């Protein structure tokens, strides 16, 4: 149990720190932030977009030959989205973004903050350009999913992002890669809810819940997990649970951003 002395000392420390920080807050103009938004939303380079589009068409053609024609509307893994530009703002609705951590030259985009390096084995992931990798431990994590391959495939380090809003990532060197046809799934690998929580698609050892884990990057986030979002125009929605238990009721959230 806490005591009145604890409460008073914590309140006092918090209030002092908040007051001093507010008094000495740096001067930042809103226009500076709006200009950053324009830089953030810059259109992708044409050559990058064309490369992705051509690769996607080839992969889809190969997949059609192997597994037969894809039926639109059958399940949530249709061929939509694979040729979208890197950033597709939907006015006043859900933002659909394609995570593109590489430059046209195949190097890691300098905007991505590589916080660590890891090495190990990788398996084909949820999409044609992503992998699920197991490597040496970085922080408390040794499973990296998804990891994105650039134009050089797994011959160059993969980029395994953290929370997509943070622009941080781990550079992963694949020592071996599993055989098999790449998947053409287009399920977003991450979604951002209207309460600011970001959820990651997880595809293994997940006990039947999810498949989006909202405590993947931040263990205390709420809700805890979500179903696959329902694509809507202009706004996507998703059903989520406060706790990772079967009994936890579902609540509908608006999806602010999806990342492919």
């Amino acid at each position, binding site marked *: 149990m806490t005591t009145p002395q604890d409460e008073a000392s914590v309140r006092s420390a918090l209030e002092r*720190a908040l007051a001093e920080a507010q008094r000495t807050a740096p001067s930042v103009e809103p226009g500076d932030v*709006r200009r950053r938004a324009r830089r953030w939303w810059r259109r992708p380079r044409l050559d990058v977009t064309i490369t992705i589009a051509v690769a996607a068409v080839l992969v889809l053609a190969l997949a059609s030959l192997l597994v037969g024609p894809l039926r639109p509307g059958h399940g949530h893994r249709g061929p939509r989205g694979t040729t979208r530009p890197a950033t597709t703002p939907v006015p*006043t609705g859900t933002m659909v973004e394609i995570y593109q951590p590489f430059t046209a030259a195949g190097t890691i985009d300098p905007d991505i903050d590589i916080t660590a390096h890891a090495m190990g084995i990788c398996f084909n992931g949820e999409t044609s350009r992503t992998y699920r990798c197991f490597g040496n431990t970085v922080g408390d994590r040794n499973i990296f999913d998804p990891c994105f391959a650039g134009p050089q495939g797994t011959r160059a380090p993969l980029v395994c992002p953290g929370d997509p809003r943070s622009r941080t990532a781990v550079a992963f060197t694949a020592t071996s890669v599993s055989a098999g046809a790449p998947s053409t799934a287009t399920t977003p690998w991450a979604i951002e809810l209207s309460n600011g929580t970001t959820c990651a698609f997880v595809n293994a050892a997940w006990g039947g819940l999810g498949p989006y884990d909202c405590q993947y990057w931040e263990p205390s986030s709420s809700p805890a997990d979500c179903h696959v979002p329902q694509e809507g125009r202009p706004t996507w929605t998703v059903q989520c649970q406060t706790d990772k238990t079967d009994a936890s009721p579902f609540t509908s959230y608006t999806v602010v951003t999806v990342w492919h």
Partner: protein
Amino acid sequence: MSEPEEEFDAFFRRVWGGLYAQAFVLTGSREVAQDLTQESLLRAWKHWARVADYDDPEGWTRRVLHNLCIQSWRRSRPRRFDPAGDAPGTVEVSDQHVLLAQAMRSLPGKQARALLLHDGIGMTISQTARDLGVPDGTVKSWLSRGRRIVALKLGTPSTEGR
């Protein structure tokens, strides 16, 4: 300037200081606090057409900011001012504030947020519970545990049970 820009700028000027202060308490670093506060407001601007219609745009931005701060805990630690190493113009962070930031980040993220919302910025238990998406009783329990841990780390230990 367009109407949304004017509206956003007014919102920005109203909330900037308070949000920056909260980020400072959660991160213990003025540079990180400034960067994350800008990032949260950038996201508010990106989604302004919708965020502006929310009942509480500041609450939305605050939740994004708090999540960013808690995510940043894994990448950095609060540190004292280093005259040799810090950039020119860096403002000194007192030992007491570094201690407070270290104490806050020793808590689970939601407990730290509960403490900041209730004991720091004066939200009621119910408002804090709504913001965190948990029952009132959970907030009370988090506050109790959080205060005890923070008080201990600040060097003002509880005398209960002695």
